[in-house]
């Protein structure tokens, strides 16, 4: 390791963070990196990868946030990503974050990491909670037993972070861990034998930890098997022989035995390091859990929480939305038109770019508040319970309890909804949820319902809009069931959800989560939607005959000659059965790109502006064709940005599938609606 010391000033060290889910890993990541993050995916997976930069005592680090895991057994995608990183990328140092309120399980993971043979510093987090519950964990005892530095921290309050930084710096010049869990004579002998065999095939300079590899091979760990197979497939046979022999003497599966030994070691260490002070009599968590997971009250409580969340998101946001609307549809356009510029440029900026940015920002208050409410529920500890409570219902829809979060987010905007499916471990469940989420009626679709319901269903306006939300849920469920029957047939592997103790939300953590999600929404939606609105603008002011002039945006005769109008005419025959004219078809084309643009486009196409739109719609649609139109808008492709997100998460194939499915579904449902309506004699 002399190379390390020699060039410490210039070299960038690789630091990885490892911990169970919910130990405060993200908080510590932010403390160390100052929030700096590049967020992407691990190659070939949808597992989120977060990398940032940190400078500690003049030394530069690349900090990698590994997914929250319970072990390194390559059983889930998250674990595989983590173990692959530790073995193949060989970080210079790993910070393992322990949970003081759940020491045993944290130590299990820590032991697994130590066995890989890397430099480790442990952060003993959540000591405030442990003390609150009458426990004390002695970090000095842990240090002595494990031979590594263990720093007590309260990450949310920044306690211990300075010490942690110092320990990281100090440990950098220490040798990597050589900690060994003793697996008993028989297993140890097999490990030794196997290790020396592996050593024989090790490529020069590979620096494999052969003991670790041998023990994992005996456990039949997926990743170890894959690694060793690449060295020499013969080794697998040798391992198989050893395993069979040991299992005969043990009388049980070897992997089970090994996990148990490691667990025993972890509990032994935990019990030595733990001091029980006083014991609290009544646990608040137990009491609250009794109510919120109750078989009768659980669902009503959850619905109330969700209802309140939406009230917050929509009621509080309304004045903010009005403000954004004013800025982008009155203030800025008049400002731009007053600037000395050619008409073309001024329209491109005013009707294209500014309108595009405005159409994204108009939803930001809603979406940000929805994110905020969700982050609050998450940090209080309720979201995990909600997932549990709805699991039974979701199971009937062939989804899992964890699908609830993407679906809820979908009501704000489908994009973060699809992104949130990353948290679902089971691949089939994840894909089903991601493809069902676009059925959820996002905030961008609401203006369309409002205009149509206002124009044709004056008396039943509210119920008609509400019915769209109902259909939205029904079709999401239906989609999930169909996908499960046709495409993702495997049985769900079932879930294990950790229910963290309830705690007061920390402003810093809540704000950070909200901000991170908003930022991602803005980046994704911002780039795609702004581009799309500019393209729509271009297609409206140009046509087969060339440039029509910006007057087309106000002149229905002229816009009929534009590309938008021409394509609308092409599409008209397709929609004749539903009774929609070319203008309605053109608006759908625009809505394909971004739903919120439908209302504005209709205003232009009917030549009435948004104010006179009600009247124009009332004279061009009947209640029946209008209802069919609303259904179509609900179901046909949320927007290109969502499709792009599906492509990013699942690949091009699934984005195409989603597109085809949604178009087919929307068309059939709208046609069916009109058909049934005619049969029943409704106009």
């Amino acid at each position, binding site marked *: 390791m002399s190379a390390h010391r020699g060039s410490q000033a210039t070299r960038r060290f690789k630091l990885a963070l490892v911990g169970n889910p919910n130990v405060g890993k993200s908080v510590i990541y932010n403390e160390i990196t100052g929030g700096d993050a590049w967020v992407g995916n691990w190659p070939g997976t949808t597992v989120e990868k977060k990398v940032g930069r940190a400078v500690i005592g003049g030394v530069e680090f690349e900090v990698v946030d590994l997914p929250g895991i319970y072990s390194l057994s390559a059983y*889930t995608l998250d674990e595989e990503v983590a173990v692959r990183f530790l073995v193949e990328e060989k970080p210079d140092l790993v910070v393992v974050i322990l949970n003081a309120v759940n020491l*045993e399980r944290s130590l299990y993971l820590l032991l697994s990491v130590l066995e890989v043979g890397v430099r480790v510093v442990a952060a003993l987090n959540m000591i405030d909670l442990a003390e609150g519950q009458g426990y004390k964990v002695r970090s000095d005892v842990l240090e002595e037993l494990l031979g590594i530095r263990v720093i007590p921290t309260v990450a949310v309050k920044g306690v211990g972070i300075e010490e942690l930084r110092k320990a990281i710096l100090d440990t950098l010049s220490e040798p990597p861990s050589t900690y060994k869990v003793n697996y008993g004579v028989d297993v140890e002998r097999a490990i030794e034998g196997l290790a020396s065999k592996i050593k024989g095939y090790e490529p020069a300079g590979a620096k494999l930890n052969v003991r670790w590899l041998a023990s994992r091979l005996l456990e039949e760990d997926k990743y170890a098997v894959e690694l060793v197979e690449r060295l020499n497939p013969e080794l697998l046979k040798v391992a198989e022989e050893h395993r069979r022999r040991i299992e005969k003497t043990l009388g049980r599966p070897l992997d089970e035995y090994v996990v148990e030994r490691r667990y025993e070691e972890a509990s032994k260490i935990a019990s030595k390091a733990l001091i029980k002070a006083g*014991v609290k009599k009544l646990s608040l968590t137990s009491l609250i859990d009794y109510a919120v997971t109750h078989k009768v009250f659980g669902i009503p409580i959850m619905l109330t929480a969700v209802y309140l969340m939406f009230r917050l998101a929509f009621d509080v946001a309304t004045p903010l939305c009005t403000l954004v609307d004013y800025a982008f549809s009155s203030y800025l356009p008049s400002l731009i038109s007053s600037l000395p510029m050619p008409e073309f440029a001024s329209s491109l900026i005013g009707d294209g770019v500014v309108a595009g940015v405005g159409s994204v920002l108009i939803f930001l208050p809603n979406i940000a508040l929805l994110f905020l409410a969700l982050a609050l529920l998450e940090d209080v500890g309720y979201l995990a319970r909600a997932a549990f409570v709805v699991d*039974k219902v979701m199971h009937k829809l062939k989804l899992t309890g964890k699908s609830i979060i993407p679906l809820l987010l979908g009501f704000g905007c489908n994009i973060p909804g699809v992104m949130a499916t990353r948290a679902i471990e089971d691949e089939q469940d994840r894909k089903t949820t991601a493809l069902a989420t676009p059925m959820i009626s996002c905030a961008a679709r609401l203006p369309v319902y409002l205009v149509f319901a206002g124009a044709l269903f004056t008396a039943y306006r509210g119920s008609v809009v509400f019915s769209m939300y109902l259909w939205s849920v029904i079709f999401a469920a239906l989609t999930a069931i169909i996908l499960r029957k046709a495409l993702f047939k495997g049985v769900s592997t079932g*879930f294990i959800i950790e229910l963290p103790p309830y705690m007061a939300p920390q402003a810093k953590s809540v704000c950070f989560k909200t901000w991170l999600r908003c930022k991602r929404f803005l980046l994704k939606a911002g780039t795609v939607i702004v581009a799309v609105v500019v393209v729509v603008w271009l297609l409206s002011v140009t046509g087969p005959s060339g440039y029509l002039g910006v007057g087309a945006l106000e002149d229905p005769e002229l816009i009929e000659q534009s590309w938008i109008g021409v394509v609308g005419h092409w599409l008209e025959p397709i929609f004749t059965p539903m009774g929609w004219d070319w203008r309605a078809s053109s608006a759908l084309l625009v809505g394909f790109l971004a739903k919120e643009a439908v209302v504005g486009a209709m205003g232009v196409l009917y030549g009435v502006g948004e104010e006179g739109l009600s009247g124009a719609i009332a004279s061009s649609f009947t209640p029946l064709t209008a209802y069919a139109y609303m259904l179509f808008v609900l179901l046909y492709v949320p927007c290109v940005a969502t499709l792009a997100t599906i492509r990013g998460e699942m690949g091009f194939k699934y984005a195409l599938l989603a597109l085809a499915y949604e178009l087919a579904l929307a068309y059939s449902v709208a046609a069916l609606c009109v058909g049934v309506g005619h049969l029943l004699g409704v106009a």
Partner: protein
Amino acid sequence: MTPLAFTREGRLVRVVEVRGGRGLTRRLAEVGFTPGSTLRVVSSSRGPVVVELCYSSASRCSSCGSCWRLALSFGLAMKVMVEEVESVERT
């Protein structure tokens, strides 16, 4: 011996065995369902089950309030075989 999915709320039970493929047995073991470990059934209604495990395995308790809670889907809870523990050792 009954599947965890069919135990009643409030009972203290001990894990006897986990019936699943290798991967599953291991996954459950890694979150604390090892044979011999004791846990309290917090909520069970023929759907997912909530259990409470306590972190000092030497003296499993049921009321210290620092135990951790896990929700297990019905399917997984069917694979964990448990028996009821008669004498509750309080700490």
